[in-house]
């Protein structure tokens, strides 16, 4: 079995001077750590952890991924046999008390022994009971007390990966050393990663794509990652191109909205040389043909090659990506008949002569990676043939075994054949390409980030003036931004004149307590929102009413499907 820590220690002997990580930041300056230094950092962190009594099976929480010190801090936990887990750092917007109480709860739930964090995060005033240590303190520890590296078994827990819901009991995906090793092996082969590659990433490490494809895989492969701060990237996405240009980046990953954003916001693409890029993978939200092609066209002048456009699909429950296109092969754009898709969810290839207005273009997420299987099931559990969309079930060599301390969820995770129900809707074409077209309705993906309807509704229900329990949140398409937006509808007993102020309070509360930007908020009098037969508010029904304009016109950025188009 591949073992990450021993692999990194081998890189440290073989190529000690090679960059493991290089920060790309105009604000905080650069900084880099070579593999030799990362190994030494890890040894020192291990000595520190051991002195604090952290050992096999214990949990070490980490915070702050855009930092050269994170590598040693994280590997040091593996060194002593502990389980590292990344937690989200506070955002500038979220209410401090809410953040702290959520963090305290998480740390207690995890029974974390320590919280290791970037020195850029000031936790001195945080009311948490767990011991805090910074990455530089770990790296400064005397290496003398380091034990010999823990030799993990294939079935031993390696790490936890948390979903990003903000309320309710957390769902931590538990992954073993064996699962991660198999994922790395399959992915490195699939993406053709070799020693010439340089990964450029601004994805946070508490998300699966950032953690695996931009942190763990490069360490396995012994290649550098150029790391950008998510916060700096958001304010200036062009930094990513500058980093690729300056460090000859060959691989990057990002959600679809970033393709749209970069295509629209870069004034002078010709100043960059992007010819080294061999793969920019879309992941985390469904790829859009229009956005990906806009990106490709915009950066042609920078030497960007169309065949470098790539896409993949995956989920934390199966480590990360389980499909991929290419590399080196142009992404498949599947032209299908609009009518058949809308009437019966069937992807019927459109003939060459079909007028454009009758055609929909779906972007392939590639084909299944080695050893990974997918079944598409109909409403009665029957297998559907290629072209017919249904519920997506997967079985992979690195499928998780269950959520951390969630026996309530861990009973029926897999069907009789060992397939996992992803909750996504999609289809396979007759060449084995995977298309994911929708998902269970309570999840909204805003810019690659998962937003749960119930998190937003819970916050809204506590805002004075709202008729508690009478709120509903759902996703709508925001094509101009290449992603989805969250819409909130709420019933209120207040006079209509007070609604604008109430809507503003709702917006503010949802930002503060759930860190979600709403694309729209609409109020209605009591009794207007539709209930399902079970008496709960029905998200799809109310979404349809909203798109029909029953609560007033949606804002200009929201796409309203033409009549009869369906969901």
């Amino acid at each position, binding site marked *: 079995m591949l073992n990450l820590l021993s692999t990194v220690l081998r890189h440290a002997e073989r190529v000690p001077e090679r960059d493991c990580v290089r920060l790309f930041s105009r604000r905080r300056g650069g900084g880099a750590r070579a593999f030799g230094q990362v190994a030494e950092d890890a040894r020192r962190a291990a000595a520190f952890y051991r002195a604090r009594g952290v050992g096999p099976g214990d949990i070490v929480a980490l915070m702050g991924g855009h930092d050269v010190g994170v590598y040693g801090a994280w590997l040091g936990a593996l060194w002593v046999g502990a389980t590292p887990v990344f937690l989200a750092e506070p955002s*500038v917007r979220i209410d401090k008390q809410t953040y702290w109480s959520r963090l305290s709860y998480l740390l207690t739930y995890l029974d974390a022994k320590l919280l290791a964090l970037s020195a850029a995060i000031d936790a001195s005033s945080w009311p948490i009971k767990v011991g805090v240590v910074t990455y530089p303190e770990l790296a400064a520890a005397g290496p003398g007390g380091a034990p010999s590296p823990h030799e993990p078994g294939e079935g031993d827990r390696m790490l936890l990966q948390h979903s990003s819901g903000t309320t309710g009991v957390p769902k931590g995906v538990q992954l073993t050393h064996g699962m991660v090793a198999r994922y790395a092996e399959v992915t490195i082969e699939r993406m053709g990663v070799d020693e010439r590659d340089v990964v450029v990433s601004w994805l946070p490490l508490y998300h699966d794509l950032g953690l695996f494809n931009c942190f763990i895989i490069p360490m396995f492969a012994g290649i550098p990652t150029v790391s950008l701060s998510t916060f700096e990237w958001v*304010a*200036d996405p062009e*930094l990513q191109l500058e980093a690729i240009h300056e460090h000859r980046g060959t691989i990057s990953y990002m959600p679809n909205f970033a393709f749209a954003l970069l295509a629209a916001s870069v004034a002078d693409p010709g100043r960059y040389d992007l010819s080294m890029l061999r793969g920019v993978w879309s992941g985390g939200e469904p790829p859009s043909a229009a956005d990906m092609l806009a990106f490709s066209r915009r950066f042609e002048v920078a030497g960007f090659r169309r065949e470098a456009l790539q896409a993949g699909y995956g989920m934390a429950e199966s480590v990360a990506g389980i499909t991929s296109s290419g590399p080196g092969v142009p992404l498949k754009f599947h032209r299908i008949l609009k009518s058949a898709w809308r009437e019966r969810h069937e992807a019927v290839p459109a003939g060459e002569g079909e007028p454009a207005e009758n055609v929909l273009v779906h972007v392939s997420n590639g084909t299944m990676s080695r050893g990974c299987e997918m079944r598409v099931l109909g409403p009665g559990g029957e297998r559907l043939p290629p072209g017919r969309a249904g519920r997506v079930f997967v079985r992979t060599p690195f499928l998780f075994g269950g959520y951390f301390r969630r026996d309530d969820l861990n009973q029926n995770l897999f069907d009789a054949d060992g397939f996992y129900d992803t909750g996504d809707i999609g289809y396979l074409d007759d060449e084995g390409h995977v298309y994911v077209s929708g998902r269970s309705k309570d999840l909204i993906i805003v810019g690659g980030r998962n937003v749960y309807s119930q998190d937003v509704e819970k916050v809204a229900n506590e805002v004075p003036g709202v008729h508690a329990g009478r709120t509903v949140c759902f996703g709508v398409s925001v094509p101009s*931004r290449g992603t989805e937006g969250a819409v909130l509808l709420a019933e209120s007993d207040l006079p209509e004149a007070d609604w604008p102020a109430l809507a503003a309070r709702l917006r*503010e509360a949802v930002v503060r307590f759930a860190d979600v930007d709403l694309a*729209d908020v609409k109020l209605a009098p009591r009794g207007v929102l539709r209930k399902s037969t079970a008496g709960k508010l029905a998200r799809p029904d109310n979404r349809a009413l909203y798109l029909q304009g029953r609560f007033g016109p949606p804002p200009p950025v929201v796409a309203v499907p033409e009549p009869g188009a369906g969901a």
Partner: protein
Amino acid sequence: MTAAPEARSLEATLALIEAFVARERGALREPLTPDTELLRLGLLDSMQLARLGRELAGAFGVTPPRGALTVEDFETPRRLWQCFQRFG
């Protein structure tokens, strides 16, 4: 080339931000003030920052150095205005 002084006033900056938010969100409930908390009030989401930054750069006739702006700089119109004055 930098823009004329009146295009770089706090008032003009505020008007530009207001027009941007109204265009993205639909009508504004009330006018913005220099200290309206754009991010905390949910008036501006993270995907709009870069585009607003570009519009401001155009209006001020400046090119902010790469990475000179971060999310915190978009907290209020006044803070954005102060940032863009520095770039002039």
